[in-house]
C-alpha cells in the first residue's frame, strides 16, 4: 500500500478570523498528527491566555513576532500523513498586504483551500483568494464554508454561499471546485462527518483530500528536460560518460527517443536514462535523472532537451502576468536577471499593459506603477531566447522570477501568458 501513497500539497488562505489556524489545528489533531509534548505545550499556553480547553489555533504558531502579534506573517509549512497520503500544508496569511506570501504558497500547490465565514458569505477577500488560486493555476479548489455552527448549520445559508462563489468562479479559469460546510472549531466535516448537517451528501475535508485525483496535475504530454548540470565522472570505469542531470519538468522520455537540444537545435537520440539504482527504459515528470545522448553535442546548464516533434517556443519578447514581491517598486525600463527553469538571462520590463485591482478584479489602465503585492500584465524583453510554454499548460516551463541585481533579492514572480 505504501508504494502508491502520493504526496499532496495544499495551501490555506484566510485571515485570523476565518478560523484558518483552527482548521489546520483540527486537521492535525483529529488525524492524530500531534505529539503529546506539543499538546501539553499548547494546553499550557491556552491556560496562560485564559482560554477554556485547548485552543487548536496555537498549533500553527511560528516565529516570536508572530506569536506576539497573533498573526501569520510568512508561509509556514506543516506536515501530516494518513494511511492514504502524505500532506504538505503551505499555511499563508490572508490579508491583502500578504498577497506575495499567498502567491508563494500557491505556486507548488495541488489544492487551494479557501475559507469563507458562513456568517459573512463571499467577501472581497474570498474573491482575491479565488483569483490568486486561478492565476497560479492550482488544479483544485476546496471552498470551506466554516463556522456553520454559528448559523445553526443552515443548508439555506450554505447554498447561498455556494451560489455566490460560483458567480465569481465562473468568470475565472478554474476547473475543479468543491464545497464543504464545516465547523473547524467543533470538528464537523473536517476529519469526521458532521452529525449536525445530514443534508450534506459530500465527504468531509480529509476524505476529499485523500481521494481526489491528482496524478494528472503535472503535464505528462510535453516532454521537457531543463539541464541543471553536466556529469563527467573522473573514474576509469566511466571515462567517456557525459550525463545531463536534471529533473523532468513535464512529459515522458524513453530510451531511443528522437530529441532536440534547445536553443542550439541539434538533434540526437536518447542513449540511456540513468539513476544510481538502475538505468530506466522510460522516465516521467517529476523524476530526477541523468540522460545520455547518442551524439556528442555541446550542452550546458540552461539548455533544454525536448522531443523533436514537440518543442516549446524560443522567444525573447514575453507577455507575463507578474506579481511584484518586493517593497521597492519596479523601476521603469529597469534591467533584472530573469530565471526560467535552469536558464538565467537579463531582462527588461518594457511595458505594463494593465494592473489588477485585486479587490474588484477590474483591470486598471491609468495607474501602472508596480509596487509590492501588485499583479500586472507586462511585456518583458530578454537578452537571449527562453524556451517557454504558457503557464496554463505547464507550470514549470511557464514560470519565471525576476532578481534585482543591485540587491540580489527575488523581486517578482511571473506566469507566462
Amino acid at each position, binding site marked *: 500500500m505504501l508504494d502508491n501513497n502520493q504526496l499532496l500539497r495544499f495551501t490555506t488562505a484566510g485571515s485570523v478570523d476565518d478560523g484558518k489556524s483552527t482548521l489546520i489545528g483540527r486537521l492535525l489533531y483529529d488525524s492524530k498528527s500531534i505529539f503529546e509534548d506539543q499538546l501539553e505545550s499548547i494546553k499550557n499556553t491556552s491556560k496562560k491566555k485564559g482560554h477554556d480547553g485547548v485552543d487548536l489555533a496555537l498549533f500553527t504558531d*511560528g516565529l516570536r513576532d508572530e506569536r506576539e502579534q497573533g498573526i501569520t506573517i510568512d508561509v509556514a509549512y506543516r506536515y501530516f500523513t494518513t494511511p492514504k497520503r502524505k500532506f504538505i500544508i503551505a499555511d499563508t496569511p490572508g490579508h491583502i498586504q500578504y498577497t506575495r506570501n499567498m502567491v*508563494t504558497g500557491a505556486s507548488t500547490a495541488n489544492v487551494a483551500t479557501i475559507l469563507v465565514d458562513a456568517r459573512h458569505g463571499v467577501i472581497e477577500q474570498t474573491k482575491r483568494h479565488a483569483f490568486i488560486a486561478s492565476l497560479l493555476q492550482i488544479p483544485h479548489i476546496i471552498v470551506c464554508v466554516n463556522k456553520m455552527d454559528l448559523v445553526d448549520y443552515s443548508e439555506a445559508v450554505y447554498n447561498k454561499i455556494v451560489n455566490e462563489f460560483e458567480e465569481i468562479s465562473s468568470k475565472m479559469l478554474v476547473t475543479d471546485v468543491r464545497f464543504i460546510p464545516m465547523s473547524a472549531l467543533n470538528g464537523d466535516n473536517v476529519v469526521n462527518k458532521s452529525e449536525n448537517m445530514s443534508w450534506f451528501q459530500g465527504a468531509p475535508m480529509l476524505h476529499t483530500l485523500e481521494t481526489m485525483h491528482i496524478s494528472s496535475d503535472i503535464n505528462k504530454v510535453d516532454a521537457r528536460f531543463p539541464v541543471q548540470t553536466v556529469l563527467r565522472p*573522473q573514474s576509469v570505469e*566511466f571515462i567517456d560518460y557525459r550525463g545531463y542531470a536534471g529533473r523532468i519538468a513535464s512529459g515522458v522520455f524513453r530510451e531511443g527517443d528522437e530529441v532536440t537540444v534547445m536553443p542550439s537545435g541539434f538533434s540526437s537520440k536518447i542513449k540511456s536514462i*540513468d539513476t544510481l539504482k538502475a538505468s530506466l527504459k522510460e522516465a516521467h515528470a517529476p523524476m530526477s535523472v541523468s540522460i545520455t545522448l547518442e551524439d556528442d553535442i555541446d550542452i550546458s546548464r540552461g539548455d533544454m532537451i525536448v522531443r523533436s516533434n514537440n518543442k516549446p517556443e524560443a522567444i525573447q519578447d514575453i507577455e507575463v502576468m507578474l506579481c511584484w514581491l518586493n517593497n521597492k517598486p519596479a523601476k521603469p525600463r529597469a534591467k533584472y*536577471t530573469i530565471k526560467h527553469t*535552469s536558464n538565467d538571462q537579463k531582462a527588461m520590463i518594457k511595458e505594463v499593459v494593465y494592473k489588477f485591482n485585486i479587490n474588484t478584479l477590474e483591470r486598471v489602465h491609468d495607474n501602472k506603477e508596480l509596487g509590492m503585492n501588485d499583479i500586472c500584465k507586462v511585456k518583458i524583453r530578454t537578452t537571449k531566447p527562453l524556451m517557454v510554454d504558457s503557464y496554463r499548460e505547464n507550470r514549470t516551463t511557464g514560470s519565471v522570477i525576476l532578481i534585482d541585481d543591485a540587491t540580489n533579492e*527575488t523581486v517578482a514572480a511571473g506566469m507566462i501568458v
Partner: protein
Amino acid sequence: MSKYYLNYLDELESEAIFILREVWAQFENPVILFSGGKDSILVTHLAKKAFYPAKIPFPLMHVDTGHNFPETIQFRDDIIKDLGVELIVGSVQESIDDGRVAEEKGKNATRNALQITTLLDAIEANNVDCAIGGGRRDEEKARAKERFFSHRDDFGQWDPKNQRPELWNIFNGKHFQGEHFRAFPISNWTEMDVWNYIKRENIAIPSLYFAHEREVVKRQGTWIPYSEFLILEDHEEIITKKIRFRTLGDITITGGDESDADSLEKIALEVAGMRNTERGNRSDDKRSESAMEDRKRQGYF
C-alpha cells in the same frame, strides 16, 4: 502499463536531488554539513544519487564539539573513506583554546551554542558559499519557516522576517562576497519519512540508533549517556539500560529512550507509534520557547 506518478518517498527523493544539483550549479564552493546523525547521512546518500556516476563533488564539513559519541566519529571516518571525498573539521576545542568562545559553566553546561562560532569560522576559513544541512521543517517551529535556499548575511546571521520568496522550483542563490547560503534539501521530509526511506534504501547508520545496553543517568526525565564529560550530582546514579537514541547530538545533551528496537523495521514501527516529538529529548531546545529561533538567527545549523 506503467503508472506515471511517483509515490511520496520518490517525490521527496527527486526534490532533494534537484536541490543538491542546483547547489552545485549555483555555488562555487559548497559543503555538506555532516554531524553523523541520520539526517546528514541521508543528505549524503541523496548527494551520492544526485551526482552518480560521478562522485560527490564537494567536501563534508564536521563541526567537532569534542563531546562526541565515539561511534559517531568512527562512522564519519568510514563514510569519508567509502565515498572518497574530503573531510573538513571545525573544532570547538580549538575555538576555546584560541579564546574565540568560552566554555559554559555548571552541571548542564554544553558546547551546543559554542558550535555557532566554530561553524561560522570554518565557513569563512574555507571560503564556503553554501553549507548544505539536514534541517527539516517538521522539526521545530522556527525551522518551519526556513527556505530551501536560505540566505545568511556577512555575519552569518539569518533574518527570518526578510527572507527571499521561493516560488515553484526556481531557486535564487545569488549573493555578495562574504555572504553565504544554507541549503536544506530534505526540508519537506518528516522524521517518519526519513526512517521509511532509510529502511527502504537500507542506508547504513550508526549503531547508536539501534537498541543497545549502555551506562546512563536519569536527568530531566530522560536517559543521558554516562561519559567522561558528564558532571554527576550526588543523588545521581549510573545504571545500565537497554536504550536507543532517536536523534544524535553531543553526548552531553542527547537523551536516549528505553527500547528493544534493534533493526530498521523495528525502529520504523517504534517511530510510527511515538507520541512525543523527536527533539523533546534534546536539552538544547528546552531552554526557552524560542531557543531554536534565537540560535538560528545567530547562524546555527
